[in-house]
């Protein structure tokens, strides 16, 4: 492996980590409020399709982004109605949402574009352009710092930077604002929030809808930034890897960034090399694909520091008599 390869791998790590980052933060906010969200995958997928479809039809990627966010929020709303209003099982609701998105995107794509469940390829303004950071060209030839800045950090679509900004933003909102305090409280003990005169239902809906927005960004980036259009099942388990990253990070924003970068790196390596020869053992690419899931199981099992989810997670709130 030479320096160029390493730079390229890190560059693609950042790109591959971005949808995971949005989705992991979405799951983090929802679960911090006590609503389990295994429907990240479905919401991303729906957003990917609708953003690509609208970006193609209007020729404007920003309109596509809006459409993607709205689609994802609509699924969030279903999740909220089922698991908050009707106190249904949050896990089952998440499963349903994943299938709803998997089915509907293809049915609608076929109906609108008749290309076998995909959108036409996006070009020009229908995609997010690469954004060059200031002085990227000037610094290109500086050793080490040059490639790090101008290749790895610069030259991504704007959503990558939005994603990176979302990390401190999420941290700030969760731990420094009134909304964050209430949100964390409702995930730990909704009765405390209720008796304090704040609406448990309102807070949880709020968290679920924010998760919808973030999943919308994740899906839109996938279809209009990372790729150039929607194809069937294009999320390919990324929602679950994001879920894994969220658990890996123990529901903390900065750690989530670390986790998605690690998982992004694994994907980047697996994409580039078929097998990795470590000298004494050859790791197949499939091993790299499975690694995020294996790591999550290990973390969940508490072999390396225990992951304890928010205490009221998964339980619909019922007032005690």
């Amino acid at each position: 492996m030479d320096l160029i390869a390493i730079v390229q791998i890190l560059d693609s790590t950042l790109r591959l980590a971005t949808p995971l980052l949005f989705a992991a933060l979405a799951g983090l906010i929802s679960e911090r409020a006590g609503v389990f969200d295994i429907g990240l995958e479905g919401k991303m997928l729906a957003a990917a399709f609708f953003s690509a479809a609208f970006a193609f039809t209007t020729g404007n990627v920003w309109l596509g982004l809006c459409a993607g966010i709205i689609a994802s929020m609509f699924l969030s709303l279903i999740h909220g109605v089922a698991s908050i209003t009707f106190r249904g099982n949050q896990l089952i609701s998440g499963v349903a949402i994943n299938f709803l998105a998997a089915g509907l995107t293809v049915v609608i794509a076929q109906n609108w574009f008749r290309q076998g469940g995909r959108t036409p390829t996006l070009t020009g303004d229908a995609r997010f352009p690469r954004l060059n950071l200031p002085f990227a060209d000037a610094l290109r030839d500086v050793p080490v710092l040059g490639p790090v800045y101008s290749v790895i950090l610069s030259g991504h679509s704007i959503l990558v930077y939005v994603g990176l900004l979302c990390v401190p933003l999420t941290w700030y909102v969760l731990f420094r604002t009134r909304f964050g305090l209430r949100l964390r409280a409702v995930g730990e003990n909704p009765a405390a929030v209720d008796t304090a005169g704040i609406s448990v239902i309102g807070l949880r809906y709020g968290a679920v809808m924010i998760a919808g927005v973030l999943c919308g960004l994740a899906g839109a980036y996938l279809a209009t930034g990372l790729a150039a259009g929607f194809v069937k099942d294009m999320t390919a388990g990324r929602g679950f890897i994001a879920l894994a990253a969220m658990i890996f990070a123990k529901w903390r924003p900065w750690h989530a960034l670390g986790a998605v970068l690690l998982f992004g790196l694994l994907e980047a390596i697996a994409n580039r090399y078929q097998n990795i020869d470590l000298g004494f053992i050859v790791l197949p690419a499939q091993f790299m694909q499975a690694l995020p899931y294996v790591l999550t199981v290990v973390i969940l099992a508490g072999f390396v520091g225990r992951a304890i989810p928010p205490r009221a997670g998964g339980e619909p709130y019922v007032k005690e008599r």
Partner: protein
Amino acid sequence: MSDAAHTLERPAGAVPPAIELRGISKAFGPVQANKDIHIRVEKGTIHGIIGENGAGKSTLMSILYGFYKADSGEILINGQPTEIPDSQAAIRAGIGMVFQHFKLVQNFTVLENVILGAEAGWLLKPSVSRARGLLKQLATDFGLNVDPDALIEKLSVGHQQRVEILKALYREADILILDEPTGVLTPAEADHLFRILRGLKEQGKTIVLITHKLREIMEVTDNVSVMRRGEMVDTVRTSETSPPHLAELMVGRKVLLRVEKHPAKPGPVVLDVKGLRVVDDMGVERLRGIDLQVRAGEILGIAGVAGNGQSELLEALAGLTPGEGAATLSGQPLDVTGKSSDGYTRRMSGVSHVPEDRQRRGLIMNFHAWENVALGYHHDPAYNRGAFWMDNPAILRMTEDYMKAFDVRPPNPALTAESFSGGNQQKLVLAREIERGPELLLVGQPTRGVDIGAIEFIHQRLIELRDAGKAVLLVSVELDEILSLSDRIAVMFDGRIMGERLPEQTDEAELGLLMAGVTEKGAA
């Protein structure tokens, strides 16, 4: 009944009462929880509301705090008709509530819990510093000392309760409602609470104290209202009443305090426990070395304030909670470590167990009565055919017998457990645990949530079991029950046995001291 029957006479033109309820009714399906309730709580007083479990006290207070909407009736706060559709409205009306089960976020600090829902702005920092100042003030004013930066999960129960009171005061509550505040407190902590409440009263706050303990009413309240089966029976001045009078109002007839029984004829030692310790999941030592003996043909009553280790004692002896120490049953070693025993093996060795919480542990509410009869005895050869199959008809026949013998109504084995009343559910559990003729019966709170008729029946059955030469270990927080059933009484405090007394040589006062951790040698 007229309005005047429920409320104290008051001179015309006086300060309006802090709370006045007029004709409040509330039904949950077919259950009438509150029926035409009238009550006046005068400003600057401590007003007790007393009644048995299920008398409708908590429902009434939940209506006042906006948790439930009354079906009919009117609420007046300081003489003003007030609508309380939610907790926010209650807080606005100056009402603060301290629930029996605290509503605190365990991994938040005291400050964070206090400001939750009453923050000064959208940023936390100003709210926190404002609260810190106010908390210091309240601590000096009322003796409400708590470390503002401590995590709730690190605080004792008594301190957590103070946080609840602080929450209410931070929201500038003028009316403070406390629902069974002493249930989880040691007597010393309870006394401290009462001092705080008197201090608050002197500052002009109005306090409503909900309890089923007569002692507290007599000690701390100015006026007391009695509820019975959803109705407000009477309101009297505390100074003009007496415990027997209140007790009579509560249950509606003279209480039979003594159960008819012959003197016990204790036989050989059945259960012998030495140095039993239990450490809970949080690492807290709940039992700190218990030594006790129960003989054949006697009832050993364990008295104590709830939460002093009685539950852990029962569960460890029943093989449900791992402990350390030594125990024998009729001379045979009895495993209390939970390593080589569980609820089933314990039963087979002759120990039956009527658990404290029958709806959670003792019965499966969605199972038929007959399926519940097999619970814990499902390995019994009489209920099985061969290695795998259960003999459902045999279980059904046994259930019919049990229902006849224990007068379970309705006597229908196919009904689910949840369709029986509390008393009949308990009879079903008792039948299952007694009819197999155990050597030792462990009983926890046998008459909690059970109607009067069934209480007598259950007490008689326990005496009969004793007279049949069996050993009975009875845990109850009802001192009357302990005094009337036990042949010997052991008092537990803070995971230890403080002393043993004979019922005919002791009284509630002496037991009360022991329950508070006070021995002859002086305060513990």
